[in-house]
């Protein structure tokens, strides 16, 4: 099986090692990975902030990129729940009265998978051969939980990781406060919400906080660093790719 990797702009620019982890993980599972060298941004930031024209311009370009990629690969894998949600839902919701666009999006949606969806539903694997002996708090990001309904997939994958202890996190589904532009336009509230999550992770005895979105993680991680809260943060791809308990190149 061969997949095309759509990395997402936050991961590409700020956390390239997460993309590298994703490739390493998939190849270890016998999946061929190509990385389209013309990929950009799905337009989520603009679409969610009210800049529809700009967002849809991004969406049109990325739709082309994905369609081209699907001529050379069986599926597109995205290590980001929020990018996946934008491609599958956001692109359609921003447009009305354009059946051709909706048909394109519907076709693409069937071939675009968030990473944990791909592993569980397509590859059919739960134990990916990882080792990560740490106490982990899994933070279900709002996009993964409510927009694309990842459900228990991430936790199932993490539970099968050698040595990994998933801590009990009460009220796990509370938003971390990132919300894209919200983190800037309402920075104080954003930080208060993030602080509440950090307190919950610490109270649960977590060493590492894991999520399926680098965007939420960068907010929490940067907040924790500012507050001198001793927590590590990792994308689920980084954990699942690890075979020696370390996070290559990530903090």
């Amino acid at each position, binding site marked *: 099986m061969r997949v095309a990797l759509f990395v997402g702009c936050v991961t590409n620019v700020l956390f390239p090692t997460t993309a590298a982890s994703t490739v390493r993980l998939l190849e270890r599972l016998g999946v061929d990975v190509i990385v389209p060298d013309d990929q950009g941004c799905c337009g989520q930031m603009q679409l969610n902030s009210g800049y529809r024209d700009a967002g849809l311009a991004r969406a049109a370009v990325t739709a082309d990129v994905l369609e081209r990629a699907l001529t050379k690969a069986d599926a597109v894998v995205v290590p980001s729940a929020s990018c996946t949600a934008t491609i599958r839902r956001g692109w359609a919701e921003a447009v009305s*009265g354009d059946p051709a666009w909706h048909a394109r999006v519907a076709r693409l949606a069937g071939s675009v998978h968030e990473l944990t969806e791909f592993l569980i539903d397509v590859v059919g694997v739960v134990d990916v051969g990882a080792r990560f002996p740490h106490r982990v708090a899994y933070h279900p990001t709002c996009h993964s939980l409510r927009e694309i309904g990842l459900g228990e997939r991430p936790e199932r994958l993490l539970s099968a990781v050698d040595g990994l202890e998933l801590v009990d996190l009460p009220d796990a589904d509370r938003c971390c406060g990132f919300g894209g532009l919200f983190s800037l336009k309402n920075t104080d509230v954003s930080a208060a919400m993030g602080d509440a999550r950090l307190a919950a992770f610490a109270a649960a005895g977590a060493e590492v906080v894991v999520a399926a979105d680098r965007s939420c993680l960068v907010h929490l991680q940067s907040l924790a660093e500012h507050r001198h809260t001793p927590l590590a943060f990792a994308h689920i791809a980084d954990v699942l790719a690890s075979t020696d308990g370390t996070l290559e190149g990530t903090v």
Partner: protein
Amino acid sequence: MTRTFDGADPFPTAASRALGDDQLRRNLARATTTIRTKRGKVAGELANWEDLRAAGEAIRTSALAHLGDYLEQFEANASAAGGQVHWARDAAEANRIVTGLVSATGVDDVVKVKSILTAELGLNQALESAGIRASETDLAELIVQLADDLPSHIVVPAIHRSRTEIRDIFLDQMHRVGLPAPANLTDDPPMLAAAARAHLRSKFLRARVGISGGNFLIAETGSLVIVESEGNGRMCLTLPETLISVVGIEKIVPTFRDLDVLLQLLPRSATGERMNPYTSIVHGTRDGDGPRTWHIVLVDNGRSSALADPVGSQALRCIRCAACLNVCPVYEQVGGHAYGSVYPGPIGAILTPQLDHITSVGVAASLPFASTLCGACRDACPVRIDIPRLLVRLRSDVVDANLTTTAEKAAMTVAGASLSDPGRMAFASRLAALAARLRPRRAPGAAGAWLRHRTLPRPTGRAFVTGRTRRTPTSSAPPHPIVDHTRPLGLRTSPMSASATDSRTSILTRVAAATATQTAPTIDRSYRAPRESDVVKLFIERVSDYRASVRTCDEASLPNAVTEALGSHASGRIGIPSDLPEQVTSKVPGDLVVDDQLSADQLDGLDAVITTCRSAVAESGTVILDHGPGQGRRALTLVPDHHVLIVAADQIHDRLPDALAALDPTTTQTWISGPSATSDIELDRVEGVHGPRTLDIIVII
């Protein structure tokens, strides 16, 4: 006099300020967590909760899709039953109408049931200008009014106040407007509730004019539905000679039986109860029972504009349960005042910008951004309003109306461009690495906002995707965004002019135009399917949960059971309807007082009252009175402090749909689910406010 939100700051400023209020945040966290947990429990109890939500969505959408027809139907039926229907285009007109109606009675002190619409209209202020005092009677609204404060929640408006603050407010203010608080008042919630009861009781018993809002208007029957806990609603709807109900046009529900969904969804979503203590269904005027004169003022005030937006009109489905507030992680941090509107929280963020009551465009334009789009509200909404989708839509309205800053627009353009292809993203990565090495603590604009609470990420400087630096041309033109409405935020495209056309015609014309292309969805009624239940056992369990006393007996031992239920009141003064079967009271030693139009004070002098009922609902422990034979008029079961209620086993239905199917929709009804109660004081449930504090139910098996 209650303040208004005029002059409120836009959300970011107001929210940041609220974060500094530790007391507020403690109260909010406790309150919202409590209601969330209770709601989760009672919603989880119903295996068909999702079916009910789907039906609720369909019923409210149908109502809006044919709003004009239903409004006319309501008007015809309400008028035929003795109501007088008025139409108001906007706040000014509504206030003029109500003030005129009150002035015509010569009364200068009216009692009010909680109504957010009247706060939206600024009705109290308008009445005050005409020399009329509107006394709020809902406990939380009383607290807010006495303190010259602002409401912070849709269901529990004084949630931001601690019990100690409430005690101080009562001690400092009650004497200015009526019976003073007792000098030894503590902050114990039952004592506070008792103080409110005493203070308001004299107002209720003397009230000549009552003003209410309305939870629902039933088109099929012309009835008004009021949902409450304390009994102040029943007091205002029943005791005064004149009742004026002010209701938004979007509150229409097509048929009486549609309540079988809405009144399962609302109490569970709002307060986490299976059913609220009192629901009143007012059908016209009744001789010798309740107000002689009933006015209903139907208010538009921007609703017909919101209705015209195929996506935005979803917000009008709202049944004011505030479940969205209780699950919102943003609201939990800052409370309701930060939203600068009588409608706070997620629903406020989508309703306020679409209605007409906010004069500050700055506030209205900030509300769609007062959210992280987490979606918890969408999951909690009983009528499935897609709040995040509406927020995104309203955000594009703000941008299209040029209400964002130049700095923001520029930053978005730069950000968008720098992420458009691998070459530019590689450059952005290098830039980010460089910026991080500088370890700045402060910066202007967006970067500054980030740095207030966060460090900068420290990327390696190498993006992952290495690719062409040339931009890839698109193969096709970008798709068009939604352009199905042209109403810029905060402005009406077709304002309601003060034309010669009467308001009724004007409103109905706008509504018809707005709904011309809307279709009503089909309503899946499979939630009405009956099931096997031991209804008597379930009813007794559920009534006990409310802490009403319940006992069983057979027909022969009913008189003994009645006397037992009366307890020490058995030798006192006991009110009965004239048609209560004699046998029921054959073992009662005390004075039996037949209610032949007893005055309010005489009713207040009774120790207890005994009645039968029309039917009951096992699932929620609800007893339904339609004030027919053996049940007495409404005031009889409201004013006395102890109500003994007789239910026959064969009157008990399993669930609400079963009970409503057997009722005559054109009756005036009172639904009782426990003694009166309030959760307005720090969410501590306190029994016994205005309605009977003791409820004894006897089931004849």
